[in-house]
């Protein structure tokens, strides 16, 4: 990160000393504890008044601290709420924490500062039972309204087996149905204005263009959207809870399934965060392999976007072509990793295996094959006047809107903001690659598509560079916490076997601390905020996904659009519900 003004000094100049208590973390992000009653003004100051403001609420989450052993001088707290802010002007992050005591803590809502805080606060409420005073609609967001308990609290069991064999009885089914019934008032929607009665339309949870189980409740005047509310959580699997019961090593397969189109791209922020906690430096070869595979998955994900975006707008055929291309990507992926959609192939300290013999040929084949295909899709889709009519000027938002709502990735770049974490905060050796950041102009559906299409070309460039410059050397770091160590050595050397043995069984013991790592994933910034209590698994793993933020914005952009525009908008956002619900 670049040299930035010292936030602590700035904040102390504003609020005086004594307000903040800084906390050391394993990443470079300044972290401060702020008293509960001062949090809103601090947030406001950071967002609006400070020079080079922290305009984006990157993440808002909580930690159940009650069983944490290594708090190392942090203020006493049962539940801590964490605000992670991002300043584009400074290219710097800041983390604010609020210590809360008691079993049912409360604190003021920050929705008035960032509208984007709405869903985040609901999630914290849902998962931890923390109440946000002044929140416009504080209700469960991921769990069904009938759920008992707050899953991410430490007392909540992680395994369904604990709850007995599930049986859907008649009464239970009726109760669940009743709970899911849509009542506009509950969502802050008006049933009518003046003499216009709105039609409420439930789009989803099963609907062809919601791309998964998402429910959008629309208030319609004719086909025009007057208001919308989103009901998410149908794809919630509790990945963050799973992280707390798996070892650092065995959680890797679960990350693949967050953005299930992103494959190993999901592994990357996780292993980078763990490596940061453990102080591991992956060897060059591992880095380049990681970049290459991640870019393959960026292409794979964008291809799915491309095809389905076309299909959402009625183009039947391109989806077959893009999925076919994706299969070609998967062929390379399978040859290298053995998996296709979920290779689960990155490891703490490197990757699972070395590249197989002949990988170059496969990669070369793809690099040669793909560009003409992209050119053809341009003809079929991007240049189609019908598609242009459908997508241009539709669902647009400004750069300011995007920042306000936490938009990252192609959605941000489509507003003309040249911001790519691979360039701005290079990780895994991206600084050594040559590629451009494609940007759009208008922030509409069309531009978002254009950006992604161009990104595929850039990804291909990166892959070509990987192909030409693959370093020699080991694929796994020479660090005792790199899990598992080089297999060849494990099979013959006892010390390697011992490290391997403990790493794959009890799991590597990661030193206590906190670190977060956000990367430019397929859909935006995917970040893992990991807290180690010096144990074999995460004490808390927060997964910040781009889709969650992007989806929250839909009602804001969607008002005034027509139903088909909404479909275009949904398609252009390119979200994955597993990425939203986690």
């Amino acid at each position, binding site marked *: 990160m670049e040299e930035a003004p010292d936030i602590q000094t700035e904040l102390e100049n504003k609020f005086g000393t004594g307000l903040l208590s800084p906390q050391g973390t394993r990443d470079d992000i300044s972290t401060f504890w702020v008293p509960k009653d001062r949090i809103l003004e601090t947030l406001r100051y950071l967002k609006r008044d400070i020079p080079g403001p922290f305009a984006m609420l990157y993440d808002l989450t909580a930690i159940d601290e009650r069983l944490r052993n290594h708090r190392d001088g942090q203020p006493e707290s049962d539940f801590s709420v964490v605000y992670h802010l991002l300043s584009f002007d400074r290219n710097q992050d800041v983390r604010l924490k609020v210590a809360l005591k008691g079993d049912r803590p409360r604190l003021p809502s920050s929705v008035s500062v960032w509208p984007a805080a709405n869903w985040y606060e609901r999630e914290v409420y849902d998962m931890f039972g923390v109440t946000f005073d002044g929140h416009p609609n504080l209700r469960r967001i991921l769990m069904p309204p009938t759920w008992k308990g707050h899953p991410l609290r430490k007392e909540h069991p992680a395994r369904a087996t604990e709850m007995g064999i599930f049986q859907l009885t008649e009464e239970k089914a009726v109760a669940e149905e009743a709970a899911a019934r849509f009542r506009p008032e509950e969502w802050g929607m008006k049933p009518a204005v003046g003499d216009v009665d709105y039609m409420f339309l439930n789009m989803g949870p099963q609907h062809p263009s919601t791309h998964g189980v998402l429910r959008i409740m629309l208030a319609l005047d004719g086909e025009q959207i007057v208001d919308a509310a989103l009901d998410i959580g149908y794809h919630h699997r509790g990945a963050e809870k799973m992280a707390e019961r798996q070892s650092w090593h065995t959680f890797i397969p679960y990350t693949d399934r967050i953005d299930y189109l992103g494959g190993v791209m999901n592994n990357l922020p996780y292993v980078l965060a763990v490596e940061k906690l453990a102080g591991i430096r992956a060897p060059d070869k591992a880095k380049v392999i990681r970049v290459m595979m991640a870019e393959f998955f960026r292409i794979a994900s964008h291809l799915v976007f491309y095809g389905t975006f076309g299909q959402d707008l009625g183009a039947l055929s391109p989806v077959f072509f893009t999925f076919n291309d994706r299969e070609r990507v998967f062929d390379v992926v399978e040859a290298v990793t053995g998996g296709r959609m979920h290779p689960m192939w990155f490891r703490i300290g490197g990757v699972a295996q070395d590249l197989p013999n002949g990988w170059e040929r496969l990669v070369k084949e793809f690099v040669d094959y793909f560009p003409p295909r992209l050119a053809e899709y341009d003809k079929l889709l991007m240049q189609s006047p019908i598609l242009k009519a459908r997508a241009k000027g539709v669902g647009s938002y400004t750069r300011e809107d995007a920042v306000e709502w936490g938009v990252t990735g192609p959605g941000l770049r489509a507003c003309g903001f040249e911001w790519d974490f691979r360039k701005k905060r290079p990780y895994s050796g991206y600084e050594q690659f040559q590629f451009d950041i494609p940007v759009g102009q208008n922030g509409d559906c069309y531009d978002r598509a254009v950006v992604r299409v161009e990104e595929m070309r850039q990804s291909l460039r990166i892959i070509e560079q990987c192909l030409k410059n693959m370093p020699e050397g080991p694929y796994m770091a020479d660090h*005792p916490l790199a899990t598992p160590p080089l297999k060849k050595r494990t099979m013959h050397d006892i010390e390697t076997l011992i490290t391997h043995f403990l790493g794959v069984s009890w799991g590597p013991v990661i030193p206590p601390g906190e670190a977060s790592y956000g990367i430019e994933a397929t859909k935006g910034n995917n970040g893992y905020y990991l807290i180690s209590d010096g144990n074999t698994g995460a004490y808390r793993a927060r997964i910040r996904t781009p889709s969650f933020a992007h989806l929250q914005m839909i009602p804001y952009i969607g008002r005034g659009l027509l139903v088909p525009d909404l479909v275009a908008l949904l398609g252009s956002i390119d979200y994955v519900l597993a990425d939203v619900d986690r």
Partner: protein
Amino acid sequence: MVTIYVDNMPYQVREGQNLLVACLSLGFDIPHFCWHPALHSVGSCRLCAVKIFRDENDTRGRIFMSCMTPATEGVRISINDPEARHFRASVIEWLMLNHPHDCPVCDEGGECHLQDMTVMTGHVYRRTRKKKRTYSNQNLGPFINHEMNRCIQCYRCVRFYRDYAGGRDLDVFGVHSRVYFGRLEEGALENEFSGNLVEICPTGVFTDKTFKKRYTRKWDLQTAPSICVHCGLGCNTIAGERYGTLRRILNRYNGQVNGYFLCDRGRFGYDFLNSDRRVREPLAKTGQGSGSTALEPISADEALSRLVDIVQNSSRVIGIGSPRTPLEANFALRDLVGEENFSSGMAQAEQDLVSLIVHILREGPAPSASLRELESADAALILGEDLTNTAPMMALYLRQSVRRKPMAVVNELRIPGWLDAAVRGAVQGNKGPLFIAAPIAAGLDDVATETYHAAPDDIARLGFAVAHELDTQAPAVVDLPADRHALAVRIAAALREAERPVVVSGTSSMSPAVIQAAANVAWALHSRGRQVTLSFVAPECNSLGVALMEGRSLEDAIEMAERGQVDTVVTLENDLFARAPRDLVDRLRASCRNFVVIDHCLTGTAEVADLVLPAAAFAESQGTLVNNEGRAQRSYRVFPAPDPIGESRRWLSKAVMARARGRTEEWESFDDLVTRMRQALPVFQPVSNLAPSADARIVGRKIARQPHRCSGRTAMLANVSMREPPPPRDADSPLSFSMEGFQGISPPPLNPRYWAPGWNSAQSLNKFQEEIAGPLRGGDPGQRLIEPRDNGGREYFNAIPVAFSPSDDEWLILPSYHIFGSEELSALSPAIAERIPSAYVAIGEEDADLLGMSEGMLARVEIAGAAESLPARIVADLPRGVALLPKGLERLKGLAIPVRARIGKAVQAEKS
């Protein structure tokens, strides 16, 4: 307290410790091998290297072994210094040169100190291709597996086995790089504490052989805090289960009780639980009448209806409890049958002895000693006990106590007490006062100052004489021969000099006089202002507990039954044939209509019952046991016994339900039963404070019995059912049968295992203690039920027996004890069974001459008209007129000893 600086942060630590102990107590991780909290420092492994700096300006520092350096005021050390880290990694690299590539096939894997230390130092990649040294192994008997290749020459094994436990047959051989730890010749390890090698050895040289064929990694074992049931000491154990069978026992540290060690009976005796003598389903005599038909399996429902039927149609039910069963089950029985119909299940003689012990401990003023206190005693007198065989751990701690007094030299020489080699050099062979008066030579004789082998009456007389020497108020012994008197004076003098003397006695001589004499000695010492403690050996794991319930003796109950007022007898986990002569039990059996036995093993008593209900054994049931010290301790279920086996109190609650409707809710939970017991018997007030109640939670969670890395959850039952059943509920305790739940450091009575991140072996204990070798974090578990009343108005016992006079035709038969065999449950474990001696009669050399007998010759022993042929064993020190029969061995069960018997040469024809 002194201040030390670790990586530039100041910490307060106790003065005089070494830096390793101080840092471990502070929670730092310093790798180590040769240091063990009970064995202290020898500085041989070089692994605990840290950097020490002269002052804050010193940036270079020097590498020291932390275990050999005292924590002095202002010392500045660095654990994370790169050079120190590199040094430690090099030590591991060097240790790995010859370590075999064994982890996958090694029983230590996953709980191996060597593995932990290797990972902790960070040495991962080998740099040499040199060939590895190998060794041949030895067969060390049924308990311990030997795999010498894995040895890292830390010497912990011999230091424990020889220096600490007094073993002779394990030693170090060879020179140079061929150092070998083993026996001179193959054969079973003789020491009673050999099992501790499993935990002492930091790697897989010594592993649990009983665990080997059904091996399970630590991360898969479901464990719970348990109490050993194989003697009266109440050692704390961790029992581990997988796939529904009990797999092994590990030590559970209790700073006041067993510390770091267990005896072999306690460690390897668990297997009775899996033996073919287990009752796994209800059995009943199907035909009418009793005795004639055989027991046959019946369904649980039928068993229950029979039980209900029997209880409902009985006007009077006698309940025979058991000293090897927890308080709660005994109380449940007592509650079922009523106070007046409850028997403790002990024979009259035994009950009298145990009651006497309770009386003495209650009267005071000398309090009962915990095992930890025994270790710190500086003089000891043992009256009438063969501790190595009756209470082995007590012997182990008394063995340490003889080092107290000579340690004064060490202090004078200003050698720190933890500098083990220096201490042993300074102490040489010097030993503190330990006097043993017992019928025969015992395991502790090698460290005894003086020993005296005599009949119990003579032992008692010596004791009375010592008491009189200490305090003239105590009754004097008349006609004491001069040599005994001189001995008494020497003993008295030694005791008088001590600050914390201890007097040890117990029930094994079956003599109230010996116990009384011990009490007199202790009281006399107390009157002299010494901090004296008393320690009595109790015969079984809950002897004191049932004694506190004050039930009838077995004979009493039989008599009552014979008076014809009783139609049903319910026997709880008790083999009456082991306690009373056969005919007495037969009479009991004949006098009642229904004879119900609740037990986990098919004992002789169960075999004659009308209805046998399968009971859960110790690892399958929850309960409170009262040890010899009067300390009540809670033992938890490790796993729920498979249906239809039920905890005894569950069967009894069903009987109560039948007998008195509406009372069952008081019984529903374990805690309710305890509450009821406390109301009925105020002596048990503290029992409910032993451990958090069943509704206790840690941040809303139960404590998980399974480790967080437990595997196979979705496959282990997949061959039976694809639907994964929820884990069994445990309504009786705050522990869960699941990997879900609290995994950190629990309240000490509830800690199901010792594990900490990076510390997968038993050595993780250091994270659970307040300080190294100190109490557990949160206090050592257990509550003493008996505290001396300090009223001062106590009178000395004055019933001094007359001196024992041998007769020519009759011998006084006394029991001899064997660590393996004298206890009935452990004897059912196959590994223990291999070590049980065959039955014999022991006679003194003089008597042997008199009878013209030699070792191994068959002797005819005639007791009360019944004769038995046994091979003779000639014992040098056995006094004239006394013969010993081994207690508990199959052919000699139920003998009411002490008794007089005629002994002669067996006629060859009678041999058959």
